[in-house]
């Protein structure tokens, strides 16, 4: 992820969102990071593994290296940089990238020795800096570590398509990851898109998808799942860098399966004018004079062979298991599948391996995107702790922090301001040095400086040093948004001995450089104002104490489908009390209505049955069927949920809530004659017929995919293609003579599901008709018969079908009533009635509100394995505060000035949390209950309530600073 420039579909800067996580790992008192190390041997069993780890010598001492980089400067040995995909060279002593964690250098002794290894200039340079970290005599170390369980997250690699489409032969043919580096502002070309052959700007770029994948003969059978999306992303970014560049993407299917993905692709096509060409080119040749590439391909729309001349060609090769997978599998005693990935033993129990206590997550078991990997990581962590429930928490180390420096409120503020370039994200629009110079002129600012990435681990040290050197007592970061990065800087302050609340943010990225790209001067002025506003506010910042709130061990799961049942079981197995609420009279949800599941061909009832019986017999789980959520009050650790069951009301006290409300087909009325002709049905109705064996023998059946989906409101439904193909297969199994046609746009069976598609294509005679969104099939009745007219892209002609039955693959939306539920829980719902998670990539299971978690199809439609993964992941998220037994309050609470207070009680009447009460004619705040909204402060008639962190004076002065008004008070 660190190698990526941006991530789809939000175009979040990849390193910006990953770096804080890496820093957290490094800083976490309960995580021991062993980088540059390998697992050599594993002995023992679950609960008691002994792992032999080889710590490779870096030839640089981690404890002494301060990453000054002097050694790198003097090193004369150059080798291709792995991190930059060989586009540029690195030195023999190097650090892969600026935000690397741990932030230390490594000496690549093999490369050094190839050049003789005798200069030792690095040692001298390091000695000169006084660090003495370079150590040519460092030996490898073998560590024996005792652990209870093991999580494997070894990721993937790209298969080099040597020889294919001129890769390795023509200079301007790149791998997708090489291109990604080129796009990155911190990359080898500083974000300039150039041709490798002559370093001229590239104006025409093409991507070829499925290079060596979806191809049994010469490559990998499976689909690599993410290429459609990342090629789209790279094309959008290309357009952003070079608005007049032309971009072409050659594809077989556009597999935009995830939440917001189809919308993103459409944006590429219509806003950025990225051209999608449905074709897989035959060959690529090079124009010897210019270095241009000539792509020969079959133009399906015109049925001709065309040639496209481009400056750069980007190949999207298959995702393959990482190096050393086979060896690691042997060490761990787990199995590999036929493609070399770690094997999924049972689709209903993802993450588990043939060895109890060893769990998998992410791309080491097959291609997947970042958000799915994050979900899996959370779920695998849940799995990994479940065998250790009894000893959970016994080895916790408390973080040792320096004592807090006392801040006297009469002391003059000494403000330090750090302005971030964020690579080119801010720096390419806002004149950062200018902002820094301006900042220095502001009152009480004693120190201001700029940084490339001020959220990085090494910069945290810079901030800490500055605090010490300049005796700073207020800190301002002018960078991205406090909503994602505030906690990080607050931690830095605390580690430097400052109260974390003496920190203020100026958001000069999301709300400045990113929205004023074309107005650098105005953006710079705005950035200055935002910093001045932060300075005005920070002068009045005061230290705050964090108060704690107890969290019990009861969890409410809403929804009793596969997802809810799995979440309930996971939480219960971790030792928590679970209430499982289902509005229907029986458990099972959507799965109960289905016949068999793709791509495993298991009966949905069989899969469900085993879970349901376990849940019903679990002593920790209370099942409430036929029940609805009437009301929710309170907050994490303290929810009071009113449940109505058979007109009876019951109040439950729970600490956390997991939402697993699933999805349902949208109303099919009005689509393709549904409701008008009785033999137009939906897939769900067909499932029912197949399940009850009530489907009669018919001559022709037509299925229409993407009904109501891939439009402005709903994206790809992710499961429709699989459902249609699976049902077609079962129809053919019963009635081999029945003709089944599937009218589809793209076949979205990504990842390993591709294999299922291929098997069916090879073994069943099913007619696939590719229609275009712009030319949807037409349905009408003629002499009591149904007629379907559709345009087939491959035939470039209209075809006419006379089916006996039409099956519509309907889009799905969030279940009925989720909007009301969302209101009760105060959480957001997005398009298609799907709940809106906190962050698409990195927080797919959380909400901004603590204590409420999300999983399954309530978030967006998905298949069985992904649903189970999310359910387990969400249960794990809920278990964190429950097992710690507390959450820390945010610290900013209301404070009553008892001198001023007249005891009128207006503050108490506006408080939604009952956190302020009038006792003996004076208002009193219950700090742990206070959520910091500040309504009381805005309502107090004597202005006696002070909302810390957002006081009247602070907010007023912020506005005055923005208006360049005289700052009084």
């Amino acid at each position: 992820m660190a190698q990526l420039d941006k991530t789809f579909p939000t175009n979040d800067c990849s390193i910006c969102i990953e770096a804080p996580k890496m820093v957290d790992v490094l800083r976490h008192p309960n995580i021991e990071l062993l980088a540059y190390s390998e697992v050599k041997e594993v002995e023992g069993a679950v609960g008691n593994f002994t792992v032999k780890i080889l710590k490779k010598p870096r030839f640089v001492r981690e404890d002494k290296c301060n990453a000054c980089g002097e050694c790198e400067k003097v090193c004369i040995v150059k080798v291709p940089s792995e991190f930059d995909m060989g586009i540029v060279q690195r030195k023999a002593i190097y650090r892969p990238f600026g935000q690397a964690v741990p932030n230390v250098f490594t000496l690549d002794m093999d490369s050094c020795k190839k050049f003789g290894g005798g200069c030792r200039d690095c040692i001298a340079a390091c000695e000169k800096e006084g660090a003495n970290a370079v150590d040519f005599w460092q030996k490898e170390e073998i560590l024996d570590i005792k652990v209870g369980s093991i999580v494997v997250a070894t990721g993937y690699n790209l298969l080099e398509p040597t020889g294919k489409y001129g890769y390795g032969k023509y200079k301007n043919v790149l791998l997708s990851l090489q291109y990604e580096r080129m796009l990155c502002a911190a990359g080898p070309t500083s974000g300039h898109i150039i041709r490798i052959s002559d370093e001229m700007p590239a104006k025409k770029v093409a991507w070829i998808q499925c290079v060596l994948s979806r191809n049994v003969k010469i490559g990998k059978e499976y689909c690599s799942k993410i290429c459609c999306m990342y090629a789209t992303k790279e094309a959008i970014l290309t357009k952003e860098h070079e608005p007049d560049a032309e971009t072409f993407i050659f594809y077989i299917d556009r597999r935009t399966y995830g939440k917001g993905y189809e919308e993103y692709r459409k944006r590429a096509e219509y806003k950025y004018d990225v051209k999608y060409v449905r074709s897989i080119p035959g060959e690529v040749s090079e124009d010897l004079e210019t270095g241009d590439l000539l792509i020969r391909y079959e133009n399906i729309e015109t049925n001709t062979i065309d040639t496209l001349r481009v400056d750069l060609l980007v190949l999207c090769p298959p995702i393959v298991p990482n190096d050393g997978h086979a060896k690691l599998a042997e060490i761990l005693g787990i199995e590999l599948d036929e493609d070399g990935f770690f094997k999924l033993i049972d689709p209903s129990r993802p993450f588990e391996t043939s060895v109890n206590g060893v769990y998998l997550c992410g791309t080491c078991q097959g291609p997947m995107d970042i958000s799915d990997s994050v979900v899996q990581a959370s779920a695998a962590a849940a799995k990994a702790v479940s065998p250790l429930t009894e000893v959970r928490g016994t080895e916790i180390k408390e973080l040792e922090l320096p004592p807090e420096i006392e801040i006297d409120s009469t002391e003059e503020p000494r403000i330090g301001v750090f302005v971030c370039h964020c690579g080119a994200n801010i720096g390419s629009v806002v004149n950062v040095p200018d902002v820094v110079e301006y900042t220095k002129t502001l009152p009480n600012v004693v120190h201001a400086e700029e940084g490339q990435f001020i959220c990085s681990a090494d910069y945290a040290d810079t901030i800490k040093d500055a605090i010490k050197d300049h005796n700073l007592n207020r800190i301002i970061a002018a960078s991205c948004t406090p909503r994602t990065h505030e906690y990080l800087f607050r931690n830095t302050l605390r580690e430097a001995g400052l109260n974390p609340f003496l920190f203020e943010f100026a958001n000069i990225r999301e709300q400045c450089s990113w929205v004023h790209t074309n107005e650098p001067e105005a953006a710079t002025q705005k950035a200055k104002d935002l910093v001045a506003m932060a300075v005005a506010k920070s002068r009045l910042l005061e230290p705050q104490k964090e108060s704690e709130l107890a969290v019990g061990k009861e969890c409410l799961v809403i929804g009793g489908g596969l997802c809810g049942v799995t979440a309930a079981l996971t939480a219960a197995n971790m030792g928590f009390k679970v209430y499982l609420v289902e509005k229907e009279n029986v458990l099972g949800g959507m799965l109960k209505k289905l016949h068999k599941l793709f791509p495993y061909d298991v009966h949905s009832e069989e899969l469900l049955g085993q879970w349901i019986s376990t849940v019903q017999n679990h002593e920790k789980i209370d099942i409430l069927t036929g029940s609805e959520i009437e009301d929710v009050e309170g907050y994490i650790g303290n929810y009071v949920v009113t449940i109505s069951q058979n007109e009876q009301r019951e109040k439950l006290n729970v600490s956390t809530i997991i939402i697993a409300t699933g999805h349902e087909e949208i109303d099919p009325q009005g689509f393709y004659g549904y409701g008008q002709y009785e033999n137009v049905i939906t897939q769900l109705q067909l499932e029912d017929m197949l399940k009850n064996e009530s489907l009669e023998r018919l001559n022709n059946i037509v299925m229409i995919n993407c009904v109501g989906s891939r439009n402005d409101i709903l994206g790809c439904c992710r499961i429709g293609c699989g459902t249609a193909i699976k049902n077609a297969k079962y129809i053919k199994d019963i009635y081999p003579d029945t003709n089944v046609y599937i009218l589809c746009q793209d076949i979205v069976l990504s990842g390993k599901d591709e294999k299922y598609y291929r098997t069916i294509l090879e073994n069943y005679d099913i007619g696939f008709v590719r229609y275009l969104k712009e030319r949807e099939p037409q349905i009408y009745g003629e002499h009591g018969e149904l007629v379907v007219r559709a345009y087939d892209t491959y035939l470039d002609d209209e075809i006419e079908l006379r089916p006996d039955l039409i099956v519509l693959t309907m889009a799905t939306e969030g279940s009925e009533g989720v909007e009301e539920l969302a209101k009760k829980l105060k959480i957001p719902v997005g398009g298609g009635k799907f709940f809106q998670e906190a962050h698409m990539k990195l927080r797919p299971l959380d909400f901004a509100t603590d204590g409420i978690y999300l999983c399954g199809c309530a978030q967006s439609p998905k298949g069985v394995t992904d649903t189970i993964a999310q359910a387990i992941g969400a249960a794990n998220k809920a278990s964190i505060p429950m097992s710690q037994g507390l959450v820390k309050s945010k610290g900013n609470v209301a404070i009553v000035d008892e001198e001023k207070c007249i005891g009128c009680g207006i503050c108490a009447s506006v408080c939604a949390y009952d956190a302020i009460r009038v006792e003996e004619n004076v208002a009193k705040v219950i700090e742990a209950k206070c959520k910091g909204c500040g309504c009381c402060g805005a309502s107090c008639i004597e202005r006696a309530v002070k909302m810390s962190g957002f006081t009247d004076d602070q907010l007023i002065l912020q506005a005055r600073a923005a208006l360049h008004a005289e700052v009084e008070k």
Partner: protein
Amino acid sequence: MKEFEPRIIGYLCNWCSYAGADLAGVSRLEYPPNLRVIRVMCSGRIDPTFILDAFLHGTDGVLVGGCHLGDCHYITGNYYAEKKIELTKKLLQLAGIPRERLRLVWVSAAEGVRFAQIVKEFTETIKQLGPLNYKNELKEIQAAKEVAESRNFRILAVKVKEFVDNGNKYRELFTTHEINRLADEIINNEYISARIRLSIKEKAMSVKELAQQLDLAPPRVLRHMTDLKRAGFATIDRIEGTTPLYKAT
């Protein structure tokens, strides 16, 4: 001539509208650079005095953003915000500032596009209105600010919602019409008295002069003056001819 570039202050709630503004950034939507955002946790935190202080210090417009009604992260904060902003608009109007210069919007965390659109529209509206001009050296807006700080106004700002939703202590429910009439009356009176006080703070003035300056009927001014005198805020400075001149105490 250089085009008028308005200065706009935005108060956005952390959970919805500020997040929506962030999303506009993440989606790289362009909007005019005139807005300066102040983050608050809840739109219910916005005190009318903040807004009036901003106008007093030269803002051309104020944008307040909260969660959609019913979606407030703090349950009811935005309902209170709605009432407070409504009353603030009344105050602005009394001070001769078009109410369009203050706008309250509900923007969710998923509405980046909408946020950018709103900023575009609002900036355009303010550009159309032109720079803010004060007649009497900011006295109108100063008076409005003093009203916002007054007990009566602050009680009203909270009770308006309560009286309509739950009724007063005697369980008497008020209709919106009734409560608005009551609110108008209170605000009007508070404003006039604040405005008079500001004028006579500078120099002693007669009721007639004040009536002229404030464009009010002299008996009305006299009534306020009597009240001010009784409350000890004003006193007779001297008598010119037969006309008493009042001064603030």
